């Protein structure tokens, strides 16, 4: 279960670090460096409830299930790229920046639009729309029922 929650890019980062320290290190330098640092993988931090922050490996089983379900639900919400055609959505009210051409957006069932990164970070803490406070899961279920 714990493995599902690791962020997918941690492996890539460790590979990059490995290649940096590769052939350019001279034997003299490596002698001064001492033993290599212990293998460290940055552990992603999750927020099982709004004011709680915990590394992935310290979550209770219940919290892990909640977060896994949450990740699944978020992935069901439509995304898109800002192309300037929408007259309604102009700025992301989480970061308060205007949408720029090419920005990744996510659309909530209540029709509010945010930067994908901004809203995903919020939804992992609280599953309501930050603008209208509509619970996102309730709205998701209604869209499934009507379609």
């Amino acid at each position, binding site marked *: 279960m714990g493995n599902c929650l690791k962020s997918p890019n941690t492996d890539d980062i460790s590979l990059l670090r490995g290649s940096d320290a590769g052939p350019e290190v001279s034997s003299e330098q490596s002698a001064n460096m001492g033993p290599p640092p212990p293998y460290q993988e940055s552990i992603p931090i999750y927020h099982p409830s*709004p*004011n709680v922050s915990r590394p992935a490996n310290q979550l209770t089983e219940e919290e892990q299930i909640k977060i896994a379900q949450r990740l699944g639900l978020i992935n069901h919400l439509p995304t898109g790229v800002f192309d300037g055609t929408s007259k309604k959505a102009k700025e992301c*009210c*989480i*970061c*308060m*920046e205007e949408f720029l051409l090419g920005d990744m957006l996510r659309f909530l069932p209540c029709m509010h639009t945010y930067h994908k990164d*901004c809203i995903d*970070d*919020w939804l992992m*803490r*609280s599953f*309501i*729309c*930050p*603008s209208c*406070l509509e619970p996102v899961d309730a709205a998701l279920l209604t869209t499934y029922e009507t379609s």
Partner: protein
Amino acid sequence: MTNIAEARIRREFKEVVKSDEVAACNIKVELVNDTFNELRGEIAGPPDTPYAGGQFHLEIKIPETYPFNPPIVKFLTKIWHPNISSVTGAICLDILKDQWAAAMTLRTVLLSLQALLAAAEPDDPQDAVVAQQYKENHSIFEKTARHWTAVYAGGPKSYPDLDSKILSLKTMGFEEHQARAALSSKGWDLERATEYLIN
């Protein structure tokens, strides 16, 4: 501080500064330092309340995780209100705790605090003594709140009878605020306040 928090506070700061409420002298925000993680707020006491005519100063701290977590706000001006600690200035308001949403701003927080001054929620108290007085002896509560507004927030109303009670405790050697707090929590009963201060 992460970029999103600082960038947002910069924008919000501008928003508050040019808002209509500032023009009407209702709310105000000032920077404390140039890192945008601490601010000073100011709200006017709403009209037709015991806080009318007072200016209340607030300490606003911006967490690194803002706007995903709410700003940390407390009253610097001493105030007599069921949802605000008369000792520490700590505030009990849902949007500063679990009802926070990322689209809320400094402006909405200050306006909500102003609304809290106009409509206390004694059943969800921060200061139990004040809340009990609010419910059981409302006229004394209003008089006390007006008196605190006059003394600490520059409000207009003065009560010579309350001032003389404080003076008599001061002549007994008690510090003025200590005397005022004791009298306020004991319904301005000089005997009970003295007893409370001695014990």
